[in-house]
Structures are given as structure tokens and as C-alpha cells.
């Protein structure tokens, strides 16, 4: 189940940063969430089969970090992707906020939604001391896995 218009509980696919109708189409379980989404009821509709992609156009858009947290707090255990041109300095925080993968938007230059899964970068588990606000789950501790 994806948010390509079939599930009204999930965010509107028209908000996607890439063309959903392009060849291949989005993978069936991909839920694309813009960082500026106001509602949160869709979080409760997630199942472990979903792959959630939160995207932003600005690297300093802090909402992404809180959305990651919110999604994990709601016990989502699947793959959680932060899509945007984040700086290397920010990947640690993304991982600590529950993201398992990063997707540089520039890697989607061909507009192919199918390219999403091919371009994922697994976020390493941060090295430094734990922070009281860390949110690791086995699913987002992807340091040794490949997408």
C-alpha cells in the first residue's frame, strides 16, 4: 500500500518532490511526507510494511527531525528516509531522530520514483555519547545494512 492516491489516511501524493507518474512509479509501500505536513493522523495508519520518506527542500528545515521522532514514537518500525540536501554534519542528528536512511534529492534528477530505493544511503549509528533525546530502534540502526 502506498500513498499514490489509494489510501485517504496517508498524505496527498501530489506533494511529492518527484513525478509519481514517471516510469516505474513509486514503490508500492512508499509513503511520501512533506516536512510542512500539518496533520498527524496518518502516522497511526502506518504499518511496518510502509517505507516512509520525509522530504524537505531546505537543509535547515528542523521539522524533518521532529517528524522522524513523531513517527518512531508512534511505534513505526519500518524504513524511515530523510530526503533532502542535508550536510554531512546533520546525518548524526537524523540517525538520532530515528531515520534509517538518507536520500539526497539530487540523486532523483531523472524524476524517477523508482530510483528512490536505489539511491538510499544508510545512516551509520552515531559514534559519540548517547543523548537523552536519542531514538534508536533496531530498524533505524542500519549501520551494517544495505538499502
Amino acid at each position, binding site marked *: 500500500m502506498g500513498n499514490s492516491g489509494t489510501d485517504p489516511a496517508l498524505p496527498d501524493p501530489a506533494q511529492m518532490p518527484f513525478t509519481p507518474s514517471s516510469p516505474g512509479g513509486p514503490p508500492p509501500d512508499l509513503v511520501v511526507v512533506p516536512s510542512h505536513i500539518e496533520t498527524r493522523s496518518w502516522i497511526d495508519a502506518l504499518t511496518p510494511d510502509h517505507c516512509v520518506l520525509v522530504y524537505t527542500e531546505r537543509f*535547515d*528545515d*528542523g*521539522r524533518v527531525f521532529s517528524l522522524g521522532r513523531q513517527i518512531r514514537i508512534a511505534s513505526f518500525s519500518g524504513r524511515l528516509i530523510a530526503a533532502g540536501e542535508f550536510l554531512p554534519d546533520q546525518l548524526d542528528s*537524523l540517525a538520532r531522530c530515528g531515520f534509517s536512511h538518507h536520500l539526497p534529492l539530487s540523486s532523483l534528477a531523472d524524476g524517477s520514483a523508482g530510483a528512490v530505493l536505489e539511491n538510499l544511503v544508510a545512516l551509520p549509528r552515531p559514534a*559519540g555519547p548517547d543523548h*537523552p*533525546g536519542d531514538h534508536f530502534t533496531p530498524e533505524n540502526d542500519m549501520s551494517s545494512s544495505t538499502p
Partner: protein
Amino acid sequence: MYQYSQTDQHLVDQRVVQFRNQTDRYLNGDLSEDQFRPLRLMNGLYIQRYAPMLRIAIPYGELNSRQLRMLARIARQYDRGYGHITTRQNIQFNWLKLEQVPDLLADLSLVQMHAIQTSGNCIRNITSDHLAGIDAAEIEDPRPWCEIIRQWATLHPEFLYLPRKFKIAVTGSENDRAAILAHDIGLRLVRNPGQETGFQVFVGGGLGRTPVVGKLLHEFLPKHHLLSYLEAILRVYNLHGRRDNKYKARIKILVNSMGIQAFGQAVNDRFQEIRDGKLTLTDDRIEQIKSRFARPVMNVSLPARIHCNPAGAGRTVPDRDAFENWKAQNTLRSKYASFHSVFISLKKENVAPGDISAEEMDVLAGLADRYSGGLVRTTHRQNLLLPLVHADHLYPLWKDLQKSGQSNTNIQTVQDIICCPGLEFCSLANTTSIPIAIEIQNRFTDPLELKSLGDIQIKISGCMNACGHHHIGHIGILGVDKKGEQWFQITLGGRADQNLKLGTRLGPAVSRDHISGCVESVIRQYLKLRSGPDETFPDTFERVGLTPFKEVVYGQ
């Protein structure tokens, strides 16, 4: 004073390495100005009018003599020989070279100091009452709570890119000296009828171009839930605060647009999701933090060469009077019997308020070692404080301060002005502020007059950003630009205490040539109008209103 754990030190050391790497990437052209900006700001580094400015954190205003000596060394080695104490208890250096900042930060880390989150859109340095832990009227020492919040807020992975800056202040006293109602979150330690300690939580206060008094969000938050509740507030703000207009991005705007009820409900919803989770503070954790505050060292015996002369035998009359005057004005009894808190004024003739030279820092570090267990504090009024000095040592301390030119007897007088850097340093300024402060100070130099005027709080900002807190000055001065000329708006009747109030605008702005004269007229009018020496400026203003002050300024 709090002593770093290994984890604290590791974090600060890592941050130095990270910032060195970021600076190198920027200087090599691998990071754009846009990308580097939030990274450097998060580390306290501004690009100011003439040079980079670094703001160094002094958590809740507490320093030891070793740290003060390091600041003196930094002033000499990296700056022009002085630093500037800010209204949020930090210190700024105004004349740095970007490429030297990583080395400076490495030096700071040797004495458990840093510049993390002293700027940028993140949770800033936690501030508190400068009399924390030494005020007899306090419910509980707020410093361990500030430290608990500091550790949670430092490099919090979720809250490094907030819509705007975020300031938290904590007080443990009913007499608010930390201006908690002018903060994004203000916390007051309180007791409930069952004598349990918790927090009154205020939210959405702030000054700037839209000044707002904080609103009560929680009447009694049990202390174990402090971090979970703060996290819930920050999460609501981070997700819903405006990001399209930086002037509408502070939490006060979100609280006003949602309404305090709806905002409180949203916070509570997020709080319920995480309450009793891993942010819950256990008694053990609280005790662990409290135990890292080294007990104050009470200096009761001085080296034999220091002549205490507590009874005053052999002193001359002028000497005795000057000492008694200084003692009455610049010291306070602490909660420890026989120990006083001593204020060191940083309001000196023809010097920018809050400025302190490297030599003065070194001297004060020595005096702190000798008289105050090696401890020094910074205050919101841009002064310093030796927190615990034995009563018998006040006289020799005063003599030492006289020798070093640091015995100015103007604490809590009309000379004790708060003022932002203004046009002298700040690239956002409309007008100058430091010269205005100096002009006003120079109009009131007679010690007897200063004393009789009492504590009139003058606060000056060089633009609407209100870094000089003019909205909450008894007399507030705001610099405005009118067709390239400097003009000044005056507000009256503001106050920064537990009854925090925003001042009322007196009337049209006055010109650069007239501003200090107008302020003098307002003060002289207050002298005529007050019902007695105990009636403060805001109380007189409350009673008589604007009209009599307008008359002396505008001749109406």
C-alpha cells in the same frame, strides 16, 4: 559549581574538532556561506559590523577563577584585550579572526567552557538568578535544574534547527531576577500544598519587535516530568512554528495564533506520548546532578598578610564612610550566616556597560580565589558578583578593589545601565547605544544624588531587536532611523521583575542631541513626583501616568 563529567568533556572536545572541520571546509570553499551560517551561529559565531564576534556560554552565569583567567588570556591572545558581559550572563569577544576561532575553542575546552548554542536557531544558554543558591528566600537552588536542562538541550538532535532562537530561564525565588516572563519558556520553582517541589511553566514571553509577557502554561509540573514536558513544548514549536517569516517565527507568535488553551492541549498531547519514558528524571538522576555542584568553599581564614580590621580601628572617617557606602550599595547578605554577596560594577566612566579588560579579569580571578572560594558570577545587569565573601573580609576586599579601580559604588543606581552594542559593533543597529549610556551616566555622578535616586533601571537598544531589553526598563530607549538620522523613542514604566511589565511609549522620538537631556528631565520629574524615597520609578509612573513626564520632555 558544576564539575564536568567525562561525557561532558568528551562532548565539548568533539565539538571543537567538528567546528575546526566546518571552518576548514568553509575557508576551502566546500561549504557555502548559506550552509556555514547555521553551523557557525550554532557555535556562537556572528559576523558583525567589523569582525567576527564570538559569544561564549557561561551556564547560568557561574564561573570559576581558572575560567576567568582563561577568558583574560583569550582577550589578550585573540581579541583586543577585553570582553563584554551580555544581558544573558554570557561573554562576547568582538574582534576575532575566523581562522583562529577553532584554536580559541580548544583553549576554552581546557577549562570546561564552550560556545555551543550561544546563538542560532536553537536552544540557547540557560539563564538563572544570579543569586541562585545564596538567596535565603529561595524555594530551591535552581542551578541543578538549569544544568539538567542544559545537558538535555545541548546538541539535542531534534532541536538544532528550530524556527528561531529559543531562550529558557529558571528561577527558584519569588523575587524574579531572571526575567522569566520575558523568555520563550520561563520556569519558576514552586511548592504545592503537599510541599512537593515542581515548576510553574510560562511560555511565549519575549522582547524583540513584538514584545509579549509569558503566559502561564502549567501551574504545577512535577519535577520528574520537567524534560518530557519541555520536549513536548519544543516539539510542538518545531513542527508548527512559522518558518516563512523570521519576524513571526518565535514561539510567542505561535502561542498567540493558536491561543494558550489550544497550544497547551497540543503540548499535553505530545507530553502524554512520552511521559514516564526515558526522559523521566529519577530521584537518583537529580541527586547525581546536584552532587556535581561542588559545595561552596567558604573562605573564613585569610593569609596573615591580609589585615581584616573588621572593627574599623584606625580607619579615617572618609575611608569608613566610603566603605560603608560601598557595602550598603554593592553587597547583600547571603543565606549563609556572616557571608555576603559582593557586586563588582562594570559600569565605569566612559567605558561601554559590561566591558571588562583582561587585566581586570585577572585581578578579579585573584580576588575570587582570595575571598570567594574562587567563584565569580555574571549578572543580567552586566556586572559581576563574588557570591560568598565573609563579612570580616569585606573591608580588605574593598581596599583591593579600590587599588584595581573596581570599587565603583553604583550597583542598582541610575548609572547601572543595560545597553546593547549598538552601532559601535552590531551590523543590524539603527543607532548608537553605548555613547548614549555614557552620556546619561555622566549626568549623574554625585554619589549622594545617585543614592537618593534609588534603583532606576535604564535599558537601551540600538534597534527593534531589543537586545538591550528596553521594553522592560523603567526608562527604555530604542534607537530608530529616520532618513539616515539617529532618533530615540522613550518608553516609561517597564519592569523586569516578577510583575514584569512592558513600558509605555512616551511620545514622538527625540533627536540624538536631546536624548540624554530628555532622560535627565524624566528622572528629575520623578524626583519631584515620587511620594517618598521608597516609591520606585515604575510605581510612581503607575500612579501619575504619562502626562507629567510628557510635559517635561515635549513642553506640553
